[in-house]
């Protein structure tokens, strides 16, 4: 066994070395001030108003800046482009004072008009993250360094939202000159998506050099960035689909940081020159049911609850991440306001069968399940789907699994919908409202659409919408209580059924320093150094 492992390691080393040679012409990883990062890309766009994905978070938070940043404790808000901010008593109007020294990568100053233009574009382009601008009714710019945002009603989470990478401030003059539009007709008038694939127009620590889909992305240090001293001048993200290849590349020195190694693979790594740390994260994977999807069987509330009770949550954690994960009670993951004291999900097959019988489907039914054929946070979604298939077979539900490329899956889930799918989510900022806005069965919101709310009005949960309004108007002290009510309300929908929050494996060369998990941004490159 040892000999075989040695041979495998030699083979792994050779293949990883070849990949590394192909990666950087004449250079090994971390040579000079270059850092090479292995990551499976899930980009849907590089345009700040269109992008909405985990890798997008990394790109946007490093090539652009938001008004507010998230501290190293992943909770506290810190100044970024805004040096200070104030809110009115009912939290429906916020005033921001911009850093007068902040500059875009072309040397031009970051001004209030850029903030207004970026926010309006995010709102009007109606991309995946447009919900973050929900309720913004007016943006005033009394002078070049002051921005006043007026909301339709109270929003106690607005400042948190502004720490999300998707609220990036774009150089409006440059972007507009290249086809970008922010007006009410931006959805049709904006022609800049292709331009953003080759260019960035932000004030972040790095700027885009090149991007090749499903291959690599290169960034270089922004010379105008003064917020901190950058140790790394060039960053190469290498699209590396699976955890094993990422581990091999890291072990052989082909890359300096591997972002999606699963705990099982981490246990097999030779860590002599590596730092491999496993830490809890807010990321989670979930089962999503879509009663209104095309071809869906009758997924009544009872059937949905039966499905949630049939899942073997402990087994899922064991099978997908070798036990290195935790259960998640509600679509608001543990650790966020409102999740304290929520009951952890438990398998209860007897009750599940009882509910199936009550719903008149004791003999079960068939359900189609398409899922993205990829690894998310170290979890192989094919493995997860097969485990769920095994569990649901126990209550006579036959899942027909179809693995799809991520982009195809995304089109299907946003199009006709998928009756039962598995997916994943990482927070965009520290705050619970994002989960309500994204997963809540509130008319017009992303997962209400994906679950087929237009075809099946019964999934709409007016209570969640009402509670969200109450939460957004609540004081800091009252927020956890209201969000707990929301979490319970969303749990009762049984549309989004979280199954595991996998621990995050931070794996990098010992030569690289400053690697940490950021709840909003995944990986902050400006904090990374090379010894």
């Amino acid at each position: 066994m040892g000999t075989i492992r040695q041979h495998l390691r030699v083979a792994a080393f050779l293949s990883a070395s070849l990949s590394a040679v192909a990666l950087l012409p004449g250079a090994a990883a971390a040579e000079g001030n270059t850092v090479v990062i292995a990551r499976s890309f899930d980009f849907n766009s590089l345009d700040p108003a269109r992008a909405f994905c985990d890798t997008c978070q990394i790109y946007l938070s490093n090539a652009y800046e938001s008004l507010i940043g998230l501290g190293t404790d992943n909770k506290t808000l810190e100044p970024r482009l805004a040096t200070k901010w104030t809110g009115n008593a009912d939290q429906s109007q916020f005033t921001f004072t911009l850093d007068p020294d902040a500059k875009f990568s072309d040397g031009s100053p970051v001004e209030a008009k850029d903030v207004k233009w970026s926010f309006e574009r995010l709102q009007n382009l109606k991309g995946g993250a447009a919900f973050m601008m929900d309720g913004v009714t007016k943006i005033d710019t009394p002078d070049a360094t002051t921005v006043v945002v007026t909301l339709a009603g109270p929003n106690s989470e607005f400042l948190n939202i502004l720490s999300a990478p998707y609220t990036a401030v774009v150089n409006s003059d440059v972007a507009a000159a290249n086809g970008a539009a922010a007006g009410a007709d931006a959805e049709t008038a904006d022609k800049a998506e292709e331009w953003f694939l080759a260019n960035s127009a932000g004030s972040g620590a790095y700027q885009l050099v090149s991007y090749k889909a499903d291959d690599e992305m290169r960034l270089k240090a922004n010379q105008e960035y003064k917020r901190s001293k950058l140790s790394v001048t060039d960053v190469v993200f290498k699209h590396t689909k699976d955890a094993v290849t990422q581990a091999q590349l890291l072990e052989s020195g082909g890359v300096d940081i591997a972002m999606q190694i699963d705990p099982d693979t981490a246990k097999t790594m030779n860590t002599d020159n590596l730092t491999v740390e496993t830490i809890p994260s807010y990321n989670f994977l979930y089962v999503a049911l879509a009663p209104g999807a095309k071809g869906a069987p009758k997924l009544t509330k009872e059937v949905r609850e039966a499905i949630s009770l049939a899942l073997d949550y402990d087994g899922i954690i064991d099978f997908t991440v070798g036990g290195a994960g935790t259960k998640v009670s509600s679509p608001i993951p543990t650790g966020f306001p409102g999740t304290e004291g929520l009951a952890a999900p438990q398998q209860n097959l007897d009750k599940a069968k009882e509910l199936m019988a009550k719903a008149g489907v004791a003999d079960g039914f068939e359900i189609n399940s398409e899922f993205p054929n990829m690894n998310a946070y170290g979890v192989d979604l094919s493995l997860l789907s097969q485990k769920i298939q095994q569990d649901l077979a126990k209550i006579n539900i036959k899942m027909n699994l179809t693995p799809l490329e991520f982009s195809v899956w995304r089109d299907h889930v946003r199009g006709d919908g998928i009756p039962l799918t598995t997916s994943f989510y990482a927070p965009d900022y520290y705050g619970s409202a994002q989960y309500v806005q994204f997963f809540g069965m509130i008319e017009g919101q992303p997962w209400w659409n994906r679950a087929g709310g237009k075809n099946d009005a019964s999934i709409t949960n007016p209570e969640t919408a009402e509670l969200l309004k109450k939460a957004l108007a609540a004081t800091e002290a009252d927020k956890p209580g209201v969000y707990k009510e929301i979490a319970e309300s969303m749990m009762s929908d049984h549309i989004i059924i979280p199954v595991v929050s996998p621990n995050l494996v931070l794996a990098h060369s010992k030569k690289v320093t400053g690697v940490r998990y950021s709840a909003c941004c995944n990986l902050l490159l400006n904090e990374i150094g090379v010894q």
Partner: protein
Amino acid sequence: MSQSVAITAFRLPNWAKLPVIIGGLIVLFWTAVVLTINFWPIDDPIEMVAKRLMPPSAAHWFGTDALGRDVLSRTLHGARLSLLMSCAVIAAAVGIGCTLGAIAGYVGGFVDGIIMRLVDITLAFPPILLAMAITASLGPGLENAAIAMIVVWWPVYARLMRGQVLTVKVREHVEAAIAGGAGHSRTLLTHILPLTWSPILVNATMDFGQVVLLAASLSFIGLGASPPTPEWGSMISEGAIHFYKWWICAGPGIAILSVVLGFNFIGDGLRDYLDPRSR
């Protein structure tokens, strides 16, 4: 002396050398597996039967995979899918290819030109890329993978059959049959085709293993069998996720290797047997 006589008496013909016997045994074994697997006292290939990622042991000879399923059971059940699909693909490719090739070779002229240009176009693409493109456009799944493989394979038989027909149709007995008033279909079916089957048979035998390999390749990249169907290619793909748990890939890997080798050995033997020059 008597021993020498015995050896001479049981000496195998040239074409039936050791590899052919080995190939025959392998094919016989897998055929028996396909026909009788439901009666074997082995674990369910879909259900979890033990702890996940267990190395080979007395209870689970090939170990268990990431979902605690018995790798040996999945490998043996995988044979049914892989071999039956290969049979269907080869049968369809031979049927379509030989029909079109025979028509092209016998009719000639414009019809020959059209069919052979179609063959040229199809053969211009690398088989795996063409199969991937077709499967991707039709959607992942076994049926679509089979269709893709038929599209990839029929031209080989069309070209082979056309060549055979062109060679045979100028022979004297064919000319005599035509002069005697035999119609086109009678000439083709009775006087030409019976003399063309031997290279087709050899090729089909050799291709059988290649179809198993291509089917596994398509499943490996997620375009073939859907989980949790036990299929050799998808099993190897799942095993690659747990690279250092070598036993997950070993079972289906050995199965593919043995089937490809077995059919190649038999194909070689058949070629030697059917080709008088090699006797």
